[in-house]
């Protein structure tokens, strides 16, 4: 590392400690400056990248179509606000068209086939295969919203079906929440400490040989 890079690194450490300081000493000017630089830097970086992209794509005459559709979104601020419905409709249509086919194939059909195959082969073990089947069936029943057809599995003698489905659902949510929390929350602390302390110490060790 050059001396200039070392100075930059200490600048970064100072700002990182500033953002981290919020947990200990609350909102200070140090925190506000660090936060503003972070947000401003991110926006500037994104701005340059978007300009680069536009520059490379605008040569295509067909880009006039998305450009017009995009501009229509801003008519919401004018008396012609009804025109803003068009970009929303186009976006929704494209979104559905792009995702629906693969979603049905990937999330519904493939999943059902997998469960059936696992039950047939009792894979990975009989208990797990049967639990998967039970979970899939009961959760599907839980998501029946019709009053006429869903009441029998939500109330009365067969109400247990929806209850079991709910247990499976919440087990899934619990796992999802716990793993996300560990990934985001606990990881943030370790990442900050590595970036602030460990890398600084290692960089200085490298600089001074």
């Amino acid at each position, binding site marked *: 590392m050059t001396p200039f890079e070392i100075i930059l690194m200490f600048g970064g450490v100072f700002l990182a400690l500033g953002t981290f300081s919020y947990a200990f000493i609350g909102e200070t000017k140090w925190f506000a400056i660090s936060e503003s630089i972070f947000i401003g830097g991110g926006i500037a970086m994104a701005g340059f990248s978007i300009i680069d992209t536009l520059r490379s794509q605008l040569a295509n005459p067909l880009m006039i179509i998305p450009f017009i559709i995009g501009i229509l979104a801003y008519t919401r601020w004018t008396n012609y606000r009804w025109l803003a419905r068009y970009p929303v409709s186009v976006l929704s249509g494209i979104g559905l068209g792009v995702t629906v086919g693969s979603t049905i194939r990937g999330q519904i059909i493939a*999943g059902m086939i997998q469960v059936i195959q696992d039950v047939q082969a009792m894979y990975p073990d009989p208990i797990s295969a049967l639990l998967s089947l039970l979970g899939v069936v009961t959760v599907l029943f839980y998501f029946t919203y019709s009053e006429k057809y869903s009441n029998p599995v939500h109330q009365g003698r067969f109400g247990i079906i929806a209850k079991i489905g709910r247990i499976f659902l919440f087990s899934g949510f619990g796992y999802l929440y716990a793993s996300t929390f560990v990934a985001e929350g606990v990881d943030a602390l370790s990442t900050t400490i590595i970036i602030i302390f460990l890398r600084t110490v290692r960089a200085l060790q490298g600089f001074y040989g």
Partner: protein
Amino acid sequence: MTAVENFVTTWLTPKKMAVFFTILTILYMLFPVMLPMKVSSWTTDYIAEIDRLEPGDVVVWGHNWGDLIPARSGLTFNTAVMQYLMSKQLKIIFVCFSPATPSNMYTFMHDYAKSEDYGYVYGVDWVVTPFISGEESGIAAVGDDMWYPKVDMFGTPISEIPIYQDIHVISDAQLTMCDGGGFSWQPMYVRQWAIRHKMRMVNNYGFQVIAIYYGIYVQGCLDRTRGQAEFEYATDFQGEEVLRFQFRNIGASLVFLSVALGNIALYSKKKEERDTVGVVA
């Protein structure tokens, strides 16, 4: 009120806990207790999927690491993976779906993965696309036509970039990787690349997001909380993840400790309130 309840409810404030946890974690960083590690089947599947490839094969790596801080941590936990790919002489196309991703990936290759040390040349062995907007529509467009961005991140026309000469649609590549933040992004890659184009895919983000596709459309996964550490441990490409994994162990233990202390404080307070109401009555 017992001594423990008294300590938790009166002395132990959130700020004191934060200071205590930080000191404990720094101490642990200085004197880490490297616990034994078990490598999960998802990680071994991931490594096997890379080992299946021949030198010169192309990997398309979809990325949307955006903001600065996630990008920093995200970049480090891909270092070992990237170095492993380079040791296998695989070619990499980084496809970027967030405005900050192109510069992040370029920095990643130079500063973290040290591509020059492996003799990797930009344009020949690896390339970074510019930001491709549209999220899932953008992913779909790249799947159908790898030349869709027209230029790389520096504005060089794709027709002049050697790595692209045999890659026109995504199925010309041999493996796809998906990475980057968010629960919604990973299924997008799976839908548009793995399902639509029947591409083999591995995931670098986390198992919880692609669990329903695993084994059918996704052939390997580095589960974010521990997958990268397992990868480093199993392949011997040492980065920072093994150490961070040890931090996570202590961090998770502290979470359980906090939950226990929080429960003691809550029930002590309730008990105190009940007793006060009883006295007043």
